[in-house]
């Protein structure tokens, strides 16, 4: 078998630039639950002890053979710290193991209307960050302003520590170092709840647009500043609800696509690549991404969008990532995982511009042998043919 000829950094950059690396780069997006499961720990235990949890993640990394790009597998000092970080990122009520849920559960989002219709105007006026940190967070989290400030002060050192640890292992990280930075549209949908937000889109659309405009401007500014602060040239944007599975194109074209173009163009002008985490089916929406500058985005698909058709539509224009289905990783056999990874590498990664990854994040019920099979196939399949 041939040896690797690139570092992870070179491999990741080559894929983004739509070139063919020495082998397919492997990207991992995971919260605590899958690592806890593989390590034989309860998820709550994982959140309670930062060092123990991080050591468990690095042990999984070593045991499966390591990956090239990590999209946010870091932990906090306590369950409350992680819950606060994720609440600030998502802007909704969360239920955590060891708090609202039993110790061995995955953390989960509560589909509740925490954002009221009148909040759109406030967000449009003062921006999401101020609204979130001075108002919304106290609606969904039992925390005092002093405790919130303390948590915010603890996050950055924790993040730098995680980034350094990955760098020691040669792994590339991106901004932000937690796995959730939501698109403004997704953020509003999560806060209003799916049904209420949909009613707003159809029956009171004007009130949403002011908020989206302000949030988009703010998103661009904070992301550019964050990328500079953490010395990153790639940022993660999560969107799970704007695609053609949920909404017709007229909604997508009015409430998602213009703001997305604005974000990508602004970031790209600063040399920042946007990694879109796109859940549910985007089959109808994929052709739109051809309008973005070549090489400016990575589209991570979750196994419900047809990644093979997406490749044909965006070949030599946008990088793709994905899409080993969570069910395959949870219930499948290693040889089935290996076969699907080979198909992805051949058909989607054949001419470059591809990251091998799970569809969505690593599933909570993942089997260690399946993660190992995915990573092993990514690291050896192409090199074994040279």
């Amino acid at each position, binding site marked *: 078998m041939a040896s690797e000829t690139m570092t992870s950094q070179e491999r990741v950059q080559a894929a983004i630039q739509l070139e063919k690396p020495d082998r397919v780069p492997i990207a991992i997006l995971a919260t605590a639950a899958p690592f806890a499961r593989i390590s034989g720990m309860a998820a709550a235990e994982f959140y309670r002890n930062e060092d123990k949890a991080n050591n468990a993640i690095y042990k999984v990394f070593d045991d499966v053979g390591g990956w090239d790009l990590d999209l946010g597998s870091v932990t906090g000092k306590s369950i409350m710290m992680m819950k606060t970080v994720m609440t600030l990122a998502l802007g909704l009520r969360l239920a955590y193991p060891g708090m609202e849920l039993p110790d061995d*559960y*995955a953390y*989960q*989002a509560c589909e509740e209307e925490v954002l009221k219709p009148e909040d759109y105007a406030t967000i449009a006026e003062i921006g999401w960050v101020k609204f979130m940190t001075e108002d919304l967070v106290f609606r969904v989290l039992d925390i005092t302003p002093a405790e919130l400030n303390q948590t915010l002060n603890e996050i950055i050192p924790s993040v730098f520590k995680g980034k350094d640890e990955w760098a020691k292992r040669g792994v590339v990280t991106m901004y932000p170092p937690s796995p959730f930075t939501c698109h403004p549209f997704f953020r509003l949908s999560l806060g209003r709840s*799916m*049904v209420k937000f949909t009613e707003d889109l*159809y029956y009171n659309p004007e009130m949403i647009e002011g908020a989206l405009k302000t949030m988009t401007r703010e998103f661009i500014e904070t992301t550019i500043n964050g990328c500079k602060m953490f010395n990153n040239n790639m940022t993660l944007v999560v969107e799970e609800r704007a695609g053609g599975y949920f*909404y017709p194109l007229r*909604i997508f074209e009015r409430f998602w696509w213009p703001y997305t173009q604005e974000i990508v163009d602004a970031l790209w002008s600063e040399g920042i690549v946007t990694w879109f985490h796109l859940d549910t089916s985007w089959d109808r929406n994929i052709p739109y991404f051809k309008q973005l500058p070549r090489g400016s985005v990575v589209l991570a698909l979750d196994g419900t969008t047809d990644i093979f058709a997406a490749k044909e539509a965006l070949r030599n224009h946008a990088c793709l990532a994905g899409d080993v289905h969570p069910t395959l990783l949870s219930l499948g056999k290693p040889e089935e995982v290996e076969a699907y990874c080979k198909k992805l590498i051949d058909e989607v990664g054949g001419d470059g511009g591809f990251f091998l990854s799970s569809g969505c994040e690593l599933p909570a019920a993942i089997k260690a042998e399946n993660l190992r099979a995915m990573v092993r196939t990514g690291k050896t399949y192409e090199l074994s043919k040279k």
Partner: protein
Amino acid sequence: MALVELERDRVAEEVKSRAETGESPIQILEECRRGMTIVGERFQKGDYFLAELMLSGEIFKGAMAILEPYLAKVGPSKPLGKVVLATLQGDIHDLGKNIVAIMLKAQGFEVHDLGVDVAPGLVVEKVRETAPDFVGFSVLITTAFDSMKQAAAMLREAGLREQFKLMIGGGVTTTVVKDHVGADFQTTDATEGVAYCLDVMRGG
């Protein structure tokens, strides 16, 4: 047709005024159901999206709330069939389940929704109590796969499994999950689930 066009306020106004003027609530309900069927057909054809299914469901719920006191006066009608729905232990998501529940109600099914994070034992109890034609499990988190499998096993052990069709649904489900659980039907599409129930009740 106002329901089909998702005219929320117009549906509420019309249902209210027609019920108040003494029109048969069963007739009004039947029209709403027909509207929901057309919405489902538009979804199947790709003309409508999940958003429109949700909105029509909310409109239907509103119409039902207006009609309820009038329907109570004419007495209960025989349901088309009975369905027990649940999101099982390990998972607290219910968006998909709620959409299926309202669409089944719109087709005349009696729906017993057990909620989220439901212990498998509670499903057994509910099945024993209600003797449903269908049991449906909704899932988003993969750790609930084993809860579904456990519930199916407990229903078998209780000698109840042959009395109903077991359905599973949700974005992470596939035929592999169906086989893992031992279900009769799997879908990621709410309208397919409703169509399956209708088909079975018609002897399909």
